[in-house]
């Protein structure tokens, strides 16, 4: 059969064979097959394929010649070693970790303490890795060997009962402790005797001649050479010095007097030492105990009238100072301890205070820091009130020193004439709360009137809440706390009270500058004390609710106290009151955090923690501001001091800045 065969199905069949032939290089056989020989197209196709193949081979050979040789073996080995090193670095880092979860799991597996899930996981790993399996098996062997070694170890046996020697040691220790306590008490007694000996001697020191001599030699006048003012106290409030010294009261620039500071320093050191011993021996002796005992003393001695600048206390205020004569009176405490120690401390403090008062403006800084009380005896207060033409402020000032039942009468008369005076209502509430035979309704009525006259003030609501708590009406107390939360500020009328004191002192005849200074030094003290008592009472009730599991009520109380602290911070004009407010807010926040952590509601704690941080920053700033404020009084210029006092008594000290800061 000859002739050309045109493209048909056979071509496909032979093309397939062709392709296979070309790949396997058996092209010659196929080439000469019958179809290829006869089919021009297929023959053409084969020739073209062969040509293409040759071309590609040629291209490859050319490329091989022209392209540079690349040896990547070194690179690969380097990279592999890096990976290995990296692994080692990671391994070293892991090995430094104290806890490696994988190791913990393997140890649990070896000790047969592992749970089912972990056991399954470990056995799976062992199944997949022969190396690991061998390793763990060997470790198990070593573990077993060590276990057996430990089991076969014979521990030494305790052949004697050590109990008698132990008890003997404990008794010996107890005896030593007793001896230590006795020696400290003996030392304390000796110190008290020493201070008793020093104190009267200080009173007899007359340094006026030396002071006058110093003054003559120095020029500490102002630039315009004004004569220094001589501050002479009126006769009925002079100190307990002898008559000679009354005429030679030191002038203002006592800083040049070295004898008084030295004497004061000696008393101060003894005071601090005694206080330290007191604290270390009896840490339960709180300020309240001392104050309570002192208050009882004051009640016994409030009729003493002498030339001492008397610290008789207003009827509703606990006084932290006492007359030096009180040291003669034994104070019986519940535990019968520390009587003479307290007397010694209080006596020394009182002498020091009196020394400072003698040179009031010169020691303005010290007096301000101490917060010295300006007081009147009840008789003096009654005498004042009988005077005609007494200013309303002076009346208010005198009333504070009357016994509560008398004060109530005077205040009621004032309220009848001035029913819309919020301060009078406040004073009446304070008076009534200290009386025993008063119906609660009276107090509630005045509180209601007060809160209506001063609706934005949170204080009356808190006082009412405290009263309801004490009277066993918690629901009403909670309502008051809710009302307190909606009040926007806090006002304890401390500047009004201080000004009233000042007016009363002036009416009594106290030197104006002295009156101003003493009123300023006591500004805010009794209000702070009252506030602290009230906050503590509410915190105690909050704790009570916490302990019985009523967290909702407890949180409500704490939240209200926190808000109170914020209100005090934003509305009080006194830095020290603001600091106190922040401290109360902090206590409330701590209590809230305690509840939230115990009830596992930790999601709410972050805002409180942030708030705490803010509080801390603010307290630091306020403490700095208070320090700066007190430093304003450490100056030789009385005019500056009086200027500051005027502003302080009117506007508080939050906005006062030193000349450097202005």
């Amino acid at each position, binding site marked *: 059969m000859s002739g050309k065969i045109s493209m048909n199905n056979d071509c496909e069949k032979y093309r397939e064979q062709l392709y296979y032939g070309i790949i396997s290089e058996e092209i010659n056989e196929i080439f000469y097959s019958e179809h290829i020989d006869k089919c021009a197209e297929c023959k053409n196709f084969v020739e073209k394929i062969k040509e293409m193949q040759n071309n590609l081979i040629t291209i490859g050979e050319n490329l091989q010649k022209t392209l540079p040789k690349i040896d990547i073996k070194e690179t690969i080995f380097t990279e592999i070693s890096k990976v290995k090193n990296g692994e080692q670095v990671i391994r070293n880092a892991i*090995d430094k*970790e*104290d*806890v*490696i*979860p994988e*190791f*913990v799991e*393997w*140890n*649990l597996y*070896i*000790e047969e303490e592992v749970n089912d899930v972990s056991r399954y996981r470990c056995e799976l790993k062992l199944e997949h890795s022969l190396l690991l399996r061998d*390793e763990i098996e*060997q*470790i198990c*062997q*070593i*573990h*077993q*060997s*060590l*276990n*057996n*070694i*430990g*089991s*076969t*170890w*014979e*521990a*030494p*046996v*305790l052949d*004697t*009962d*050590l*109990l008698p*020697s*132990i*008890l003997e*040691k*404990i008794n010996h*220790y107890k005896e030593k402790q007793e001896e230590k306590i006795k020696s400290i008490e003996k030392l304390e007694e000796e110190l008290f005797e020493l201070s008793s000996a020093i104190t009267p001697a200080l009173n007899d020191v007359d340094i006026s001649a030396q002071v006058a001599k110093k003054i003559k030699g120095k020029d500490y006048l102002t630039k315009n050479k004004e004569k220094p003012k001589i501050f002479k106290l009126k006769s009925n409030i002079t100190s307990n010095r002898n008559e000679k010294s009354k005429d030679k009261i030191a002038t203002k620039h006592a800083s040049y007097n070295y004898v008084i500071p030295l004497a004061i320093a000696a008393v101060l050191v003894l005071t601090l030492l005694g206080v330290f011993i007191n604290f270390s021996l009896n840490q339960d002796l709180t300020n309240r105990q001392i104050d309570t005992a002192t208050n009882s003393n004051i009640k016994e001695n409030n009729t003493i009238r002498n030339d001492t600048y008397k610290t008789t206390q207003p009827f509703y205020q606990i006084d932290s100072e006492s007359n030096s004569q009180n040291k003669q009176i034994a104070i019986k405490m519940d535990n019968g301890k520390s009587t003479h120690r307290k007397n010694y401390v209080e006596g020394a403090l009182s002498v020091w205070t009196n020394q400072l008062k003698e040179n009031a403006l010169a020691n303005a800084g010290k007096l301000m820091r101490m917060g010295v009380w300006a007081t009147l005896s009840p008789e003096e207060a009654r005498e004042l009130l009988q005077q005609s033409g007494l200013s309303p402020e002076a009346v208010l000032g005198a009333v504070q020193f009357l016994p509560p039942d008398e004060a109530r009468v005077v205040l009621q008369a004032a309220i009848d004439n001035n029913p819309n005076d919020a301060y009078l209502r406040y004073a009446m509430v304070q008076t009534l709360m200290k009386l025993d035979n008063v119906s609660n309704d009276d107090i509630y009525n005045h509180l209601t009137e007060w809160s209506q006259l001063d609706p934005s003030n949170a204080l009356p609501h808190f006082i009412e809440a405290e009263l309801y708590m004490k009277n066993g009406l918690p629901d009403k107390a909670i309502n008051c706390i809710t009302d307190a939360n909606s009040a926007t500020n806090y006002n304890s009328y401390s500047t009004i009270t201080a000004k009233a004191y000042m007016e009363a002192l002036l009416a009594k005849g106290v030197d104006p500058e002295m009156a101003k200074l003493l009123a300023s030094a006591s500004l805010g003290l009794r209000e702070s004390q009252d506030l602290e008592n009230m906050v503590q009472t509410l915190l105690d009730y909050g704790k009570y609710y916490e302990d019985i599991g009523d967290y909702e009520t407890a949180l409500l109380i704490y939240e209200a106290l926190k808000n109170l602290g914020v209100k005090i911070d934003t509305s009080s004009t006194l830095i020290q009151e603001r600091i106190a407010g922040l401290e109360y807010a902090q206590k409330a926040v701590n209590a809230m955090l305690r509840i939230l952590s115990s009830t596992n509601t930790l999601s709410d704690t972050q805002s409180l923690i942030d708030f705490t941080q803010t509080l801390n920053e603010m307290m630091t700033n306020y403490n700095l501001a208070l320090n700066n404020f007190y430093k304003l009084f450490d100056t030789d210029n009385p005019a500056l001091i009086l200027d500051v006092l005027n502003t302080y008594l009117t506007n508080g000290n939050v906005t006062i800045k030193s000349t450097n800061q202005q």
Partner: protein
Amino acid sequence: MNNSLQFMDGDKTPRSSYSDEALMTLLAHGEETALIELVQRYQNEVFRFCYHYLRDIEMAKDAVQEVFLRLYIARDRYNSEKRLKPWLLCIARNLCLNELKRQKLIHFETFDSYIENQNYEQSEPTKQGFENQKSLTPFEKLVIEERQKILWDELNKLPEDAREVIVLRYFEKMHARDIAEILDTTEGAVRTKLHRILKYLKDRLDERKDFDE
């Protein structure tokens, strides 16, 4: 737990039935008979524990007395929510370490004294590695002794803190949780340390290659 309240009315239940924490609560309230019970309960254990550190019987006895004196002094500071035994042994440990420091000695310097006090008659049958010596042939006993010698040798080369953990785990048979409390660390850290030690011993023994021969 706090079992203190039920004992405050002076009942006459024998002290031996009280828990450790209840006894400590009683002691803190001035009930010194509780201390007697605690001493009787723990003096042996504390002695043994102190002996590990001090390696001297008389010193260990002195240490035991001092430990209970410190327990008495610190009775008010004990937190009844924590177990007493680890707390007590922690006091003992600190005391022993201070004493060693004072005498400039190193604790767990070697395991030689442990080797001397081995009693193979007490051994128990195990899966592998260590069988009851009574049932072994002399050759097998020799092999095991050689293996143990090598193991002791490697144990002596461990760092001090690792030896301490080995002693507490394998000689005192303490649980990792208790060891953690005594050493003031976590249970995870103790287990990690134990596994590291065993791994290290395994690697060291592999290097020597004569362990399995």
